[in-house]
């Protein structure tokens, strides 16, 4: 009896006669995505090995946007580096300015006035909002929700308008200086910013209503592009991408700089480490940045916006035009650069995508001897092949969005 049933089991099933049921012969195919492709955010080339629509291997080729940032910085004065740092993460340039300024100030041992610290925090947080609006709108656009882009761009450009009033440029802000910031806020700017924030919050709510409970968005982002907490740390993820995986590391809380220790804000932390969580981190950080900026306006007191140390900071213009000492100090700083004491320092800030670090080495002269940049996007991009292994090609697009690789800082 038992033997009979065994025989029954080993009889192979009759092969399906219908050609629809036959296995489709497949062959691995190499597809070149980029370097110039609308979904590749800048100029990254990805060589993807596909079996059907499943990714079985991926190699990244970067460097098409390499401008020699470090070499350039080694050949200009310390102050002239600021415009180059604007071009690292061009969506949120003030955070780059602040990070670099903090590295130089660490070398000089320079304390900056309180108002300058508040101004740095306000502008940084406004730029963080711009960065997150850009990411969310681009993600919406690439998943087929173009309306989101329109809302996001309106909010972002309103904020950029305010920053233009402050520093004269939308993108290349060049706002921070060694020892402070370049200019004080215009008359009535605070109220305008708060009105802008109200409008931006409305836009964020619209985007939230359009995306967060949208079936298509959830299907395409939840459970795709997953990275575990341990892997994220091992790859050196920082910022919203790390927090989406459940690790609550934020430079603003772990080692507070400027005036972040006086401000009340929350750091959102995710659980799944997928695209949807990374998107949610951004939406929540928009609200937290809004809170931070409003608190700063309430706490900020009138005062100096730059240190008055004559070794590192330009003298006020009336002195330059009115006294010989002022004219000489101005000339020396402009022509030779500030003399930063010899040594090395590593300063890091929480930029929109994570820890942005500057490793500065000075030989005591007027130019950086070495200036290394730890760009947060580097680590995220590095991990992309592992994240995408075995997943669908279509999942690559939202993953590329939410890791938010910025060509300017990754390729330097």
């Amino acid at each position, binding site marked *: 009896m038992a033997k009979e049933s065994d025989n029954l089991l080993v009889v192979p099933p009759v092969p399906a006669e219908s050609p629809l049921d036959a296995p489709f012969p497949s062959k691995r195919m*190499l597809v070149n995505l980029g370097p110039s492709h609308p979904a590749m955010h800048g100029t990254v080339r990805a*060589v993807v090995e596909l079996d059907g629509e499943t990714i079985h291997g991926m*190699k990244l*080729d*970067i*460097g098409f946007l*390499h401008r*020699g940032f*470090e*070499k350039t910085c080694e*050949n200009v004065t310390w102050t002239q580096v600021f415009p180059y740092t604007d071009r690292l993460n061009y969506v949120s340039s003030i955070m780059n300015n602040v990070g670099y300024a903090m590295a130089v100030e*660490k*070398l000089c*041992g320079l304390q900056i006035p309180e108002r300058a610290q508040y101004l740095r925090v306000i502008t940084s947080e406004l730029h963080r909002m711009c960065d997150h609006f850009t990411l969310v709108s681009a993600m919406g656009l690439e998943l087929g929700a173009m309306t989101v882009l329109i809302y996001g761009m309106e909010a972002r450009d309103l904020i950029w308008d305010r920053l233009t009033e402050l520093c004269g440029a939308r993108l290349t802000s060049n706002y921070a200086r060694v020892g402070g910031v370049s200019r004080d806020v215009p008359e009535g700017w605070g109220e305008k910013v708060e009105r802008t924030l109200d409008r931006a919050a409305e836009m964020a709510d619209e985007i939230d209503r359009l995306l967060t409970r949208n079936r298509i968005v959830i299907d395409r982002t939840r459970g795709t592009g997953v990275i575990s907490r341990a*892997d994220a*740390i*091992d*790859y*050196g*993820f*920082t910022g919203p991408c790390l927090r989406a995986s459940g*690790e609550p*590391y934020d430079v603003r809380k*772990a*080692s507070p700089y400027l005036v972040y220790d006086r401000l009340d804000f929350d750091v959102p932390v995710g659980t799944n480490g997928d695209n949807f969580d990374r998107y949610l981190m951004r939406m929540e950080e928009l609200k937290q940045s809004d809170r931070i900026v409003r608190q700063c306006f309430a706490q900020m007191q009138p005062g100096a916006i730059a240190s008055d140390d004559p070794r590192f900071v330009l003298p006020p213009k009336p002195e330059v035009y009115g006294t010989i000492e002022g004219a000489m100090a101005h000339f020396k700083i402009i022509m030779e650069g500030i003399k930063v*004491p010899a*040594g*090395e*320092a*590593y*300063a890091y800030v929480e930029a929109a995508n994570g820890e942005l*670090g500057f*490793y500065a*080495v000075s030989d005591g002269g007027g130019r950086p*001897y*070495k200036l*290394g940049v*730890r760009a947060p996007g*580097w*680590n995220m991009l*590095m*991990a992309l092949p*592992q994240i995408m292994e075995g997943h669908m090609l279509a999942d690559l697009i939202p993953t590329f969005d939410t890791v938010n690789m910025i060509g300017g800082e990754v*390729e*330097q």
Partner: protein
Amino acid sequence: MSQAALQKLKERFPDAVTETYAGKGGDDVALVKKEAIAEVCRFLKEDPEMLFDMAPYITAADYMGSEPRFDVVYQMYSTKKNHRIRLRVGVPESDPVLASVTPIWKGANWYERYCWDMYGIRFEGHPDPRRLYMYEEFVGHPLRKDYSLRGRQPLVPERTVDEPFRGPGPTGG
């Protein structure tokens, strides 16, 4: 930054750690011998009092004219203990080879490729030791201080390569 971690490191590796000092602005720095870097890094990652679990930011600096010429710099951070240290490893020009730490932290991969590309420092045991930004035919290492600012690179002849990742040409099947 953590003075205690530095102290412990010095006690554990009295020979490999040649010097420790407090750098500018409170950065804690240890100078480590080139031969011991992999061992030191593994200890730093795995020891329960250290737990430097996050991939370090690795860069290099060229101090031309002094010996050793290069400096490879590791900025370490621990998410568990919230402390940081910096390791500096002197690398001579005559033998610019260092053990890779990519087997310890996956995130070290591109930083080491960057050091090879820009400074010509090789990392032994690296799984993918190509240049990071520049193309394979690029001559020299641009962030070395003796790399000419006005130099020109030779033209690259058209190539047919079988390895499709490398560039133009047929895919080779």
